[in-house]
């Protein structure tokens, strides 16, 4: 990996982290309607995977989707505007935090129905196959989602038809307050891949380079018409499930141990020690990211809300 790529990865991860910190802050100021599910702590997954994707590749996202959007290349300003419910947001304020989409960059949308994204990803993979292109789809979902029937049905179909899909399970150990150990006897969700005859890989979800490598391999397989891969990234969310969750169900030592393995800090350390990148350079990037986020916040705050009657628009396609 060249230096420019490494720095790009760092910048993306930083963008997501700072973006989420801003969302948290704005929520506290009552500027974010509804609820939020922050991606902080899981940045390595979205970035490690998406850095293997082209602009015409697809991703499918979840309720915890801000990081997926940014990693795929969504604009910070339109993302923030959507979260604030503004007319200038990606979905004109109709979707909000849990439902951001940007079809111009292959971001096929975030669903808040847990597990609903997997069949859609399989369908996008089928479309690629039928259209005969060499695109791929990355489908993000949680440990909790892997207990839905859709997980099994969608992966099996993608497997038998050799569809170009990367099923990326972000195992952050919890689905709301439910610990993985309460709801499955397996430790490694990736092992479920063998039930469908496809490769399954468990990877350190806080190590962006490891994820990058695994996703690269899976991407090659997919583009070579060899079928899907299940990638399990073991990671941790820094905050509660949603804004008002104090997450007291997580043991203090566990939280502490994971915070010490912060994906962003680890990668920064690696860049400085092994990657031959200067501190001053990274500081400069940090400043740029802060500026970019400030301007996204300003754009979102200054934007108008949609006109109420716009609620009636976009229900059906125009007749042709």
């Amino acid at each position, binding site marked *: 990996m060249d230096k420019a790529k490494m720095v790009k990865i760092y910048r993306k991860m930083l963008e997501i982290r700072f973006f989420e910190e801003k969302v948290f802050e704005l929520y506290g100021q009552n500027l974010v*309607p*509804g*609820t939020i599910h922050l991606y902080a702590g899981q940045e390595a997954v979205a970035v490690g995977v998406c850095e293997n994707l082209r602009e015409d590749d697809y991703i499918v996202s979840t309720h915890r989707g801000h990081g997926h959007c940014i990693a795929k290349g969504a604009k910070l300003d339109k993302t923030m505007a959507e979260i604030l*419910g*503004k007319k200038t947001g990606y*979905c004109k*304020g*109709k*979707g*909000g*935090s*849990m*439902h951001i989409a940007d079809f111009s960059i292959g971001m096929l949308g975030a*669903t*808040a*129905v*847990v*597990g609903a994204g997997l069949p859609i990803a399989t369908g996008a993979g089928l479309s690629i196959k039928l259209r005969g292109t060499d695109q791929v789809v990355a489908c993000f979902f949680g440990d*909790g*989602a892997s*207990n*839905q*029937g859709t997980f099994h049905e969608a992966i099996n179909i993608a497997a038998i038809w050799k569809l170009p899909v990367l099923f990326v399970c972000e195992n952050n150990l919890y*689905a*709301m*307050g*439910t*610990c993985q150990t*309460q*709801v*499955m006897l397996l430790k490694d969700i990736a092992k479920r891949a063998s039930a469908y005859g496809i490769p399954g890989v468990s990877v350190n979800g806080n190590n962006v380079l490891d994820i990058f490598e695994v996703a690269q391999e899976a991407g090659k397989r997919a583009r070579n018409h060899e079928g899907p891969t299940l990638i399990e990234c073991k990671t941790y969310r820094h905050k509660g499930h949603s804004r008002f969750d104090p997450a007291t*169900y997580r043991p203090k030592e566990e939280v502490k141990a994971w915070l010490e393995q912060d994906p962003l800090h680890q990668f920064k350390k690696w860049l400085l020690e092994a990657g031959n990148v200067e501190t001053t350079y990274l500081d400069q990037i940090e400043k740029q990211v802060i500026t970019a986020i400030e301007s996204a916040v300003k754009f979102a705050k200054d934007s108008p*809300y*949609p*006109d*109420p*009657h*716009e*609620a*009636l628009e976009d*229900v059906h396609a125009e007749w042709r």
Partner: protein
Amino acid sequence: MREITYRDALREALSEEMQKDETVFLLGEDIGRCWEGAFKVTKGLAEKFGDERVRDTPISESAIVGAAVGAAITGMHPIVEIMFGDLTTLAMDQIANQAAKIRYMFGGQVEVPLVVRTPFGGGVNIAAHHSQSLEAWFMHIPGLLVALPSTPYDAKGLLKTAIRGGDPVMFCEHKLLYPIKGLIPDEDYTVPFGVAEVRSEGKDVTIFATSFMIHKALEAARMLKKEGVSVEVMDPRTLVPLDKAKLISSVQKTGRLVIVSEGCKTAGVTAEIAAVVAEEAIDYLDAPIKRVAEPDTPIPFSPPLERYVLPNEKRIIKAVREII
């Protein structure tokens, strides 16, 4: 009498019925010790009755309801919590094809004593996947009973009736009702299904409303009273069975009807109620029936958009004025 919240009333019903009947048990996502229900209805119940009877499940709505059906036809009384009403769609086969039809299809050999509790409704800006009101879907499936308590008193009394019965009940709660308070008796009581309640008596117009919309209808009635319009507010409490007699006798008295419900207008709750009155009481009507419901759109996220689609007291008052 005591004043308690809708949330606490539901919990009391669950707790008292579990105490009384060992076959009653709860299952659902995050209802146990760690989270105690997304809306805290099951708070403290796992501690009291143990994890065996207050079961946290994986995120598997179809299997949760299906497992409850299986338990119900083999001697247990399961009560399922589906975290958001929108997610009952994931369990729709088990609800509509299995739970609803088993008794009939198997010639009445077995009962399906199952309660599915779930919150519907908008108003908290959580967008299209967490804000719908789908009770009309359940009304359309013979075999299901459909309850929509609007007060703490009804929440407790209807839930007890649901638990003690032998049919699958879709127990439709509302997110905005959980914190509201009301009086309930100290002693054990139940509220029968199919008996409507007149929440406010009047003679000029009948407003038929359900769930959270009862409170909007009562607000509208208070404001209209100042203008000299006397409004009767009718709460069906259960949509299946429906207390047609009380509805029709109210319409006979007032000659005017406004029907209010969250959920889309087309083929919705308001459509069915309007049809019943048109069929059985049209001669008593002095004006067209008015319906206040959501337009036929998904629920949008942004506050001004969501406010625009949800029924409210202003729209109810406007509908009343149009026919008075």
